[in-house]
């Protein structure tokens, strides 16, 4: 069984009467890329800020690499790399000076670490350009360089691709995938760009109004979102028999309420309906289904709001 890198139990943050994070449970195993999905103000950043000690939780427990006490958590945080919201550095220092300052402060030995971090994110050639003159994309890259400088075992990234150009996004994605593959780095990433998140994440947590609505692996989500024909029939057993016998369908599932999801014959729905009618099955409805991460998330928060 993989090591649990990060576990949150009943994590709660209250600001006055506003419950920003409401008893969130979360668990990350080594090597996972966990995508935290939610609208603005859903509580994603607050969760990451509590993990990184920027905000003190009102209630609940954080376990990092098996440690829970305040002192031990502090030590374990040195195994993390963090990028929360817009990267922040001293505006009057260059990229190299900023990183060198943090390297010294963190007691990371070797000046080469700074150079390597700059090279990794493509900022080695910025010379004497001060941070205040950086573009948003360059700032993001420097933020990532700082997060990666200590070769972290856990990366916590909040909206990390904001401001990156398309080329930068691809580079960024490759860096993360390499880290995950080669070093088994665990990553918790929140992003609004769900299409990008779907290229990375191995599991997802959907959060709204501070509540964790659902946690699901990418595989399970893929199954849920897979394109299919949904058939509402009067007799699912009879319909299954017809589908297997007449159409040689194998890839389908029967859901409660006499609903059948058919993953074969997607290009010939009329043939399916004809076969069922001829086989004596009464059809209550036929609809094409299939969703991407965005649709799934929207249907979920829609459901949460109506529920």
């Amino acid at each position, binding site marked *: 069984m993989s090591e649990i890198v990060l576990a949150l139990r009943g994590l709660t943050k209250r600001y006055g009467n506003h419950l920003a994070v409401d008893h969130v449970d979360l668990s990350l195993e080594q090597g996972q890329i966990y995508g935290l999905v939610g609208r603005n103000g859903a509580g994603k950043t607050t969760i990451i*800020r509590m993990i*990184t*000690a*920027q*905000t*003190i939780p009102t209630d609940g427990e954080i376990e990092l690499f098996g440690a829970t006490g305040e002192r031990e*958590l*502090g*030590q*374990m*945080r*040195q195994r*993390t790399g*963090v990028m*929360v*919201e*817009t990267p*922040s*550095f*001293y*505006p*009057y*220092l260059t990229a190299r*000076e900023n990183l*060198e*300052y*943090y390297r*010294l*402060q*963190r*007691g990371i030995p070797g000046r080469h670490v700074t150079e390597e971090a700059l090279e990794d994110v493509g900022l080695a050639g910025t010379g004497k350009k001060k941070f205040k003159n950086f573009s948003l994309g360059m700032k993001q890259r420097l933020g990532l360089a*700082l997060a990666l400088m*200590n070769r972290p075992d856990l990366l*916590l990234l909040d909206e990390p691709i904001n401001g990156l150009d398309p080329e930068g996004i691809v580079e960024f994605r490759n860096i993360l995938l390499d880290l995950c593959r080669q070093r088994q780095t665990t990553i918790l990433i929140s992003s609004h760009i769900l299409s990008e998140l779907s290229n990375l994440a191995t599991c997802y947590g959907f959060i709204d109004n501070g509540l964790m609505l659902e946690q699901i692996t990418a595989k399970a989500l893929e199954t849920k979102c897979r394109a299919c024909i949904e058939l509402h029939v009067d007799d699912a057993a009879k319909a299954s028999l017809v589908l297997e016998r007449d159409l040689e369908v194998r890839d389908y599932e029967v859901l409660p309420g006499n609903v059948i999801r058919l993953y074969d014959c997607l290009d010939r729905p009329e043939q399916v309906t004809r076969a069922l009618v001829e086989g004596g099955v009464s059809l209550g409805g036929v609809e094409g289904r299939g969703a991407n991460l965005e649709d799934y998330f929207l249907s979920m928060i829609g459901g949460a709001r109506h529920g």
Partner: protein
Amino acid sequence: MADYLRAECTKAFRRKYLYIALLVCLAGESLLLLGSWLTYSWGNTNISFHSTAVMVAAILSFGLYATLITGDIVFSDQYKHNTLKNEVSYGLPRGRIYLGKLLVSMLVALAACVVLIGFYLGGCWLLFPHDGSDGTVWSLLGYCLAGAFPLWLGGQALVMACYFLVRSSTMAAFLSIGILVVLASVFQALGLLISPVFECIRHFLPGVMLDTLASMAFDWPYVGLCWIVGAVWCVGSTVVGLAIFRRKEIR
């Protein structure tokens, strides 16, 4: 802690801000020396090393105001630039962050103090005649600096507490000035209007003690009192500042 102090020193001592502030102060001192030297060269026989050097004792309060600048140099607008999150999120203990910056601000203040006082006294020593009272001058300056040093450190600790607790550096500076300077006038008024207790408390404010120090020349128990008061301000400000900073939300 050693790594933290090294990083803070590197940042503080490579800031132009520190050297510009020093240059401005040195320029002011140069003007003062030039004015005295012109007066002396025009035949004023009252101008000597003694008369010019003892001016240091008259402007001890300046050191208290200077702690605003040294504090600002080290704290570096952390809240404006949101840079504290880089330190906290890496797991550096908040106590180390607070005490590290406080110690470095004291170190920077000490270095600036040595440069400024050294430059001024060096100028006096070289430019003006010595009348045989040099020993008295050094004794008086030694006495004043021995009393002023702990009060400046107390002031520095208070200023750093304000920088850590108030998000706006400008507001933090105003709050520091309010406590270090305006509070004395408030206590004086309260002493007259309400109770003499306030007047009594006023005498333990760093600014008031610095103003009194030169007139209490060679009263060594008073220097001892300065150390006690300085230590109380230093420890008190740090304990309160650190306690609040430990729970403070970092953005």
